[in-house]
């Protein structure tokens, strides 16, 4: 499988690089906090032991300086408290920034694909896949937050402790080393591979379980009538068991590794004690320092513990990264076409179809051998029974579907040799209104359009009256999926948006559905006025009717063959 390999949209190192400053700050504050945690314990232990050794009597004699340790202890307590707070704020600030970067980056990556590709992936990937997109992005910061940073801190602290031990007495380091290395590196690394592999299947198993439940749930009534709900019940229970088993395996691993880490640290404490005592008389090691070492090792337990569970986060973010990269990758392996001869055709535009045949993957029918020439100012109405391939033909004209045979020419040059996105205005059957205000939706067509321009456009499409009656007018939110408006209104809003974009060649799929006859004429007139003399292609199941329209009709049979092309005007009702 040697596909043309473009760089994946997200790499793990990007997660770090995108917010390097924020993560560094979080790391430094976190490291200072943890140092303070350990130092607080060590100095406290050393202090009371040294104080006991100095004793009341010798106090005056030796001039035991208790101010400095006392100040250090207070300082450590403050650094620890403030540091913990600051570290959490800093790391979340960075994580939220990363979230923003990732969203924009993924969105841009999705936007670079051909428009058709986006549709294909929404057709093959279900709504659930799209929904996982959001949760997957949220998973990615776990790589830094709960895998990378804890490992960084654990490494820094472990090295610091080992350095301190070597400075005190190198043989003491040797005594502590086996247990310490085991707890810091050996055990967590051993589980990292196995554990992250386990964690990668989490989402898959969860998805299978959801599917086992949600799909039959939609058909529960017939299944109950047929006495088959029991089977569904058993299957869901089986999937659930699999999910929970999988979860249990991961947690058992994490729990066991965590316990063994603490055991290893405990062993290093015992061996430090055992060896340290024999060194008390020989080297400069004091009892107070030995106790400080023990306190440090006890404190290290808390710092090394997150490593035992880090594999869960690592596996989850790896899986999320892979899914996102797969989602963003263009299924056809084509990135947005950059034409060989970039340029925009000048008006007057003429469109020529030469024996076009095309088929949407998996469809039974599509247009077969369609040829015609459409000159500037002419209107083509494509008609025929449903499923004959009218919409498919429009998709070919829009340059979003490659024809299986034939050629499509604009001003005597092949369609894909032009920079099409400034020429063609395409309103497919499936379009979207977004969860934004009406004005923001319209301005997607033209970001610079003034309010006056918007009102004028709305009036031309017979929407102005309705919008003026809305309490919030242009600022009315349209709701997710444009749920707050009726079908006919939504279609006209989408049309208005397209007209605002001022494209000379318009391809409209059923723009008149849901409108009455009076509306038909107004809308059609507005389209022609706005478009000037560019060619207009309309797919419609009702005849177009407007005085003075240079109308041509293309009839397709049920099999997609042109049956009657020509300049006959549609019979009027």
């Amino acid at each position: 499988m040697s596909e043309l390999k473009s760089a994946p949209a997200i790499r793990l190192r990007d997660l770090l690089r995108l917010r390097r400053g924020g993560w560094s700050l979080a790391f430094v504050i976190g490291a200072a906090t943890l140092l303070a945690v350990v130092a607080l314990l060590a100095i406290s232990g050393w202090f009371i032991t040294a104080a006991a050794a100095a004793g009341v009597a010798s106090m005056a004699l030796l001039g035991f300086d208790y101010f400095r340790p006392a100040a250090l202890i207070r300082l450590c307590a403050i650094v620890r408290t403030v540091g913990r707070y600051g570290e959490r704020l800093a790391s979340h600030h960075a994580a939220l920034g990363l979230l923003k970067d990732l969203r924009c980056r993924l969105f841009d990556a999705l936007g670079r694909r051909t428009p058709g590709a986006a549709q294909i992936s929404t057709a093959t990937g279900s709504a659930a896949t799209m929904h996982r997109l959001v949760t997957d992005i949220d998973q990615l910061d776990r790589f830094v937050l709960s895998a990378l940073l804890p490992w960084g801190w654990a490494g820094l602290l472990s090295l610091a402790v080992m350095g301190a031990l070597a400075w005190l007495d190198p043989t003491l380091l040797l005594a502590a080393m086996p247990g310490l290395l085991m707890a810091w590196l050996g055990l967590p690394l051993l589980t990292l591979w196995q554990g992250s592999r386990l964690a990668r299947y989490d989402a898959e198993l969860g998805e299978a379980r959801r599917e086992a439940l949600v799909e039959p749930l939609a058909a529960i009534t017939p299944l109950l009538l047929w006495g088959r709900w029991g089977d569904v019940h058993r299957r869901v229970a089986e999937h659930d068991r699999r999910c929970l088993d999988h979860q249990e395996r991961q947690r058992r691993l994490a729990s066991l590794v965590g316990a063994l880490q603490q055991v290893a640290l405990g062993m290093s404490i015992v061996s430090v004690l055992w060896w340290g005592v024999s060194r008390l008389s020989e080297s400069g090691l004091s009892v107070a320092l030995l106790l400080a070492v023990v306190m440090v090792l006890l404190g290290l337990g808390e710092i090394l513990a997150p490593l035992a569970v880090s594999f869960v986060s690592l596996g989850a973010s790896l899986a999320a990264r892979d899914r996102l990269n797969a989602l963003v990758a263009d299924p056809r392996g084509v990135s947005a076409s950059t034409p060989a001869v970039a340029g925009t055709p000048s008006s007057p535009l003429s469109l020529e179809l030469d024996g076009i045949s095309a088929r949407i993957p998996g469809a039974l029918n599509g247009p077969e051998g369609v040829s015609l020439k459409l000159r500037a100012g002419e209107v083509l109405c494509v008609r025929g029974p449903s499923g004959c391939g009218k919409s498919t033909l429009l998709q070919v004209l829009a340059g979003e579907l490659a024809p299986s045979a034939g050629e499509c020419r604009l001003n005597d040059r092949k369609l894909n040799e032009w920079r099409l996105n400034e020429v063609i205005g395409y309103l497919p059957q499936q379009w979207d209104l977004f969860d934004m205000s009406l004005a923001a939706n319209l301005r997607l067509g033209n970001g610079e359009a003034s309010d006056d321009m918007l009102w004028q456009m709305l009036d031309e499409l017979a929407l102005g009256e309705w919008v003026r009656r809305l309490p919030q007018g242009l600022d009315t939110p349209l709701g997710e999926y444009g749920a707050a408006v009726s079908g006919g209104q939504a279609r006209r809003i989408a049309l208005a948006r397209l007209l605002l974009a001022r494209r000379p060649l318009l391809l409209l799929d059923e723009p008149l559905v849901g409108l009455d006859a009076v509306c038909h004429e107004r809308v059609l007139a507005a389209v022609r006025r706005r478009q000037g003399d560019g060619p207009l292609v309309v797919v419609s199941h009702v005849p177009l009717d407007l005085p003075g329209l240079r109308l041509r009709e293309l009839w397709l049979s049920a099999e997609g063959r042109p049956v009657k092309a020509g300049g006959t005007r549609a019979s009027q009702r």
Partner: protein
Amino acid sequence: MTAATDSPTPRQRLARCLAPQRWWLRGALLLALGGAVLLVAQSWLLAALFSRWLLAWQGEAAPTLPAPWWLAALATCLVLRPLLHAGREALSRRASRNARAALRLELLERLGQLGPLRRRFGSDGALGAQVLEQVDALDGYVSRYQVQSRLAVLVPLLLGVAIALHSRLAAALMLMTAPLVPLFMVLVGRAAAGASRRQLDTQARLGGHFLDLVRGMGTLQRLGAAAQASRRIAAASEAYRERTMGVLRLAFLSSAVLEFFSALAIALVALYLGLGLLGVLPWAKGEVPVSYPSALFILLLAPEFYAPLRQLGADYHARAEAEGAMRELAPLLESRPWRPADRVALADTAAPPRLACRNLAVAGDAGRRRLAPLDLDLAPGERLLVQGESGSGKSSLLEALLGFAPYEGSLAVDGHELAELEREAWQRRLGYLGQQPPVLRGSVADNLRLSAPEAGDSELVAVLDQVELWPLLAARQGLATLLGERGRGLSGGQLQRLALAQLLLREAPLWLFDEATAHLDLDAARRLNGLIERLSRGRSVILVSHEADGLEWVDRRLVLGTAALRQERRKEEWREEMREEMPSCQS
């Protein structure tokens, strides 16, 4: 008098859910307490060892070098403690797993009893999330919070007693601050919980906004507005970040308070003990209030005093999460599914039943009526179209007929009251098709055998032929043609025809259709209605539909009204009406 109306609070519900798991949880608590006892022993051993060594080092006692028994005992403590902790976790996980599996089982059974009535509790997606995610949301509460909330009280008490034996003042110092911790947690935690809920809301909204734009990527590209949308996403994310940081600044205060007390306790104890050992305490100059072994013992216990509370603080959200989940699940758990009394067994017969409804009504919530009293007779073999605006009770009528909804008045099947019938026997005589065809991922044959597990291949081909699907399927892989999720691979109309084939395999004499053509385009709907006409001859049919197009063949039409606007028309009358309506429908 136990009022049936007062429903348990989420917390009571949680407690009830956990009751069967109490032994696992008690075991976990016991192991955790064992760990705390070991901690005391371990600290005592360390303190004793070091004080002995200190004396030896100062030359005040004979240098008794490593006491192997002491070290062995210490090693035992250091090894056993983590293992006990792992044991505690294993038992808690077991409890959580059992509790979740039991709750999920209960919910699935409830759904099975509700049947079509489940819609009153949410969409299928939402119900799926309840059965899966909301049940899993109990995990943190069961496996961590439950035991930890007890430990957070018991361990500080245990350590307090152990410390008090050595120094009343140190113990008092710690025990005095201890109640402040929960107090602060409640104060800050409550504000933080509200704030974090709002933050989750905005996070969901932001996610929805992003998804909305991603879904419409094709539209954006065609408009050349992808860059504009990208800037919107950046701006929205940035605004969200600003808001969230404001929330977090407050939310993290609660953990900062715990951190503060924990650090303060260690620092105060260390200073008090150290200065005490030096004899420079202002109120006790020249004397040692706490001896060295005791001081070290206290210092070793000090960080552990607040550790359970800190852990509880970290798990605090688990309780809120679990209670929230229980609140979501409450409607489904409180639902009281109705079923007929199973007193009369109907014979299995292929003869269409005679239905007689007298004052049939279906009650809804809060005294509302889903179906206003209705008289209706359906002769054997009669085909009836039921229409009416949404909310007029069309679906409720079908739900009552299906034997899922409790009704008032009388609904007699061949002279037997439906409420007295054996439900399964009655349901065997029914065929039902709603908007969603009962098609699951799998082959065409698998799907047909959902309704008739014993049917042979030739029977399957025969019914597929009847619904005009066989030519299409034969061109693919025949009966083995695979269908994806929600029947992907066939169009909506083809899927509904497959569902008709499923019905044909059952030989049920009464067919009920609930908006079976609602999602189909005009052509597909006409075709399906034509098929229903041909295949339902000789059966009784009740067909609920918004559209009357292609349904001119029914014997009668019943229009349900929300008000008293209910009319029943004879065939000829409403055909006349239809013809008048036609032109305006078409344009």
